[in-house]
């Protein structure tokens, strides 16, 4: 029999205690907390709406706009009734490029977000679970990858491989997994020392079973928030690499849109509409994901919640929160 893990695990990264559900309800519990966060936290609601909107655009948007590579008008035209966001330096429709670019950029963003966490989890959990030499070696590996600057490494790797989405995804994973491994290692280490894991070890359960049944379910919320963080990273880094011309410059993505804007000297001709919408889209998606994450953090962090309740209690009785314990004489 395995013990039923209940209680809180503190994460070293943000100092917040995350409530974990029981082992078997782990994944469902994690998702339920997310649904709750989206329902009750303004920031999470906002984030979820933004992301949903962009996903809709990515899926259905291309059906409503023309071919983004078509030369449809005079180059560098400001927004007009015909071309809502104007035309590029080549005479293509900016709106069509933005909408079609959303699909490729989000696809790479979300897949890379998932893969970096997968690789990070594989290495981090192995290191934290087995400890000893395995841990020493794997920790050394991710620590080295953490100090080697990511962008130059990504550029060097990408330059040698055939340009395209696969190469892009590959370099983003190579330069992005180490942080996740580091965080998941310390989390695994903390769980490894908990009673219910010790009980499972004594009961002779297999390592794989302990990891999948006892450890992973207790990290659901952390992993989900890492996937979100990984996606933010992947979208930003992808746009940066493509801006440098390391993607497939003939494809239509957010990054190549900006690459062409820079290449066509959009700035020096004052054609703000060729770079402003794409940047806003990148930022909105990133901000939406971040808000989703921090709203979730708020729901799962009992200390934060209590402090809010405390503040509301005081304000509701006409008192300002103070450093010294406040005195509200309710019972004279």
């Amino acid at each position, binding site marked *: 029999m395995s013990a039923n893990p209940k209680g809180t695990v503190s994460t070293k990264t943000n100092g917040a205690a995350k409530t974990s559900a029981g082992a078997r309800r782990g994944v469902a519990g994690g998702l339920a907390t997310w649904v709750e966060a989206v329902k009750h936290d303004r920031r999470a609601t906002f984030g979820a709406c933004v992301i949903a909107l962009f996903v809709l655009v990515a899926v259905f948007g291309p059906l409503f706009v023309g071919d983004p590579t078509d030369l449809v008008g005079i180059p560098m035209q400001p927004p007009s009734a015909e071309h809502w966001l104007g035309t590029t330096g080549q005479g293509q429709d900016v709106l069509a490029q933005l909408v079609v670019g959303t699909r490729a950029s989000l696809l790479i963003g979300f897949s890379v977000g998932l893969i970096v966490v997968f690789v990070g989890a594989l290495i981090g959990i192995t290191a934290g679970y087995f400890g000893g030499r395995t841990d020493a070696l794997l920790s050394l590996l991710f620590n080295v990858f953490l100090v080697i600057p990511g962008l130059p490494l990504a550029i060097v790797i990408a330059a040698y491989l055939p340009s395209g989405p696969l190469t892009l995804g590959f370099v983003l994973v190579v330069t992005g997994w180490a942080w996740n491994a580091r965080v998941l290692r310390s989390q695994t280490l903390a769980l490894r020392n908990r009673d219910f894991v010790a009980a499972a070890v004594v009961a002779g359960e297999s390592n794989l079973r302990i990891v999948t049944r006892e450890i992973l379910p207790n990290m659901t919320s952390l992993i989900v928030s890492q996937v979100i963080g990984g996606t933010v990273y992947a979208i930003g880094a992808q746009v940066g690499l493509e801006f440098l011309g390391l993607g497939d410059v003939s494809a239509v993505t957010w990054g190549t849109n900006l690459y062409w804007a820079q290449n066509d000297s959009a700035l020096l001709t004052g054609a703000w509409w060729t770079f402003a919408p794409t940047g806003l889209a990148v930022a909105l998606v990133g901000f939406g994901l971040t808000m989703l994450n921090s709203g979730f953090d708020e729901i799962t962090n009992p200390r934060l*919640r*209590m*402090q809010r309740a405390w*503040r509301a*209690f005081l304000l509701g009785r006409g008192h300002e929160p*103070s450093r010294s*314990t*406040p*005195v509200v004489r309710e019972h004279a």
Partner: protein
Amino acid sequence: MPEPIIEIRDLCVDYVTDEGPVRAIDRLNLVVERGEVLGIAGESGSGKTTLAKALLRILPPPAVITGGEVLFKGRDILSMDDEELRRMRWREISMVFQSAMDALNPVISVVGQITDTLLAHDECSAEEARARAGKLLDLVGIPRERLDSFAHQLSGGMRQRVGIAIALAMRPSVVILDEPTTALDVIVEREILERIRELQREFGFAVIFITHDLARMLQVSDRVAIFYAARLAEVGPAAELRRAPRHPYTEGLLQAFPSVHPGARTPRSIPGQPASLLNPPSGCRFHPRCARAIEICPKEEPGPTEIGPGHVAACHLAK
């Protein structure tokens, strides 16, 4: 005739939660007399540490003091503003925290944590402050070479001694000891308690000694107060409580410790779980665990009953 230094009247402290406030101290009446050792005992969650921090007004959120008065030398601590509190703290009431490891700043040396206190309250030069810090270490039996040590370089016992030295820095009239010896072994614990007792006789400050170890407390205290589920169950002279406890909970606590009557009885723990503060039992909060509960206990809250001089119990059976 003993004269009170702190008078607590109807003190209420609440912790605010999502589901509403939870009462952690409920209408507490208690007096601390000049120069005495007052012991406070009770299970964890009974409100002991909450009281200690409430006296200094350093209870962190989500705590709110919701009623009563705390008169220190006749002045109400609960009506003081931040600056008045700052001047009262440490000069009048100081405290030794539960875990010295957490209470000492890891990146400031021992001497730094003593002198900043001295400099904050007194006008004295840095050299003077350092010399006074050295004298404080002498008092608690730590060699002066340790002045420039950091917390992680000291043993658990030494850290707690440093905590005591800091507490004595301003020669306060009340020192609160919040389970000062829980993390220590028995021998170190005895040494430290004896040292505190000696210092207390020498300087004449009052001590509020908080612990869940009733046996130890009865040895060192003049008077003892027993808390149960945010309320005062019984208070009285230590010798009397030991000999003739009047609250069944006090009795239960005494029986739970073998050292009080060596060889006489095997220790017996009190049956049942400590009362929940979220949803406390009706009437007397101890009634679900009380072997002698009668019909009235779940219905009516027992008021304080004076049994003898300074001996009060909140129990229907004590009347």
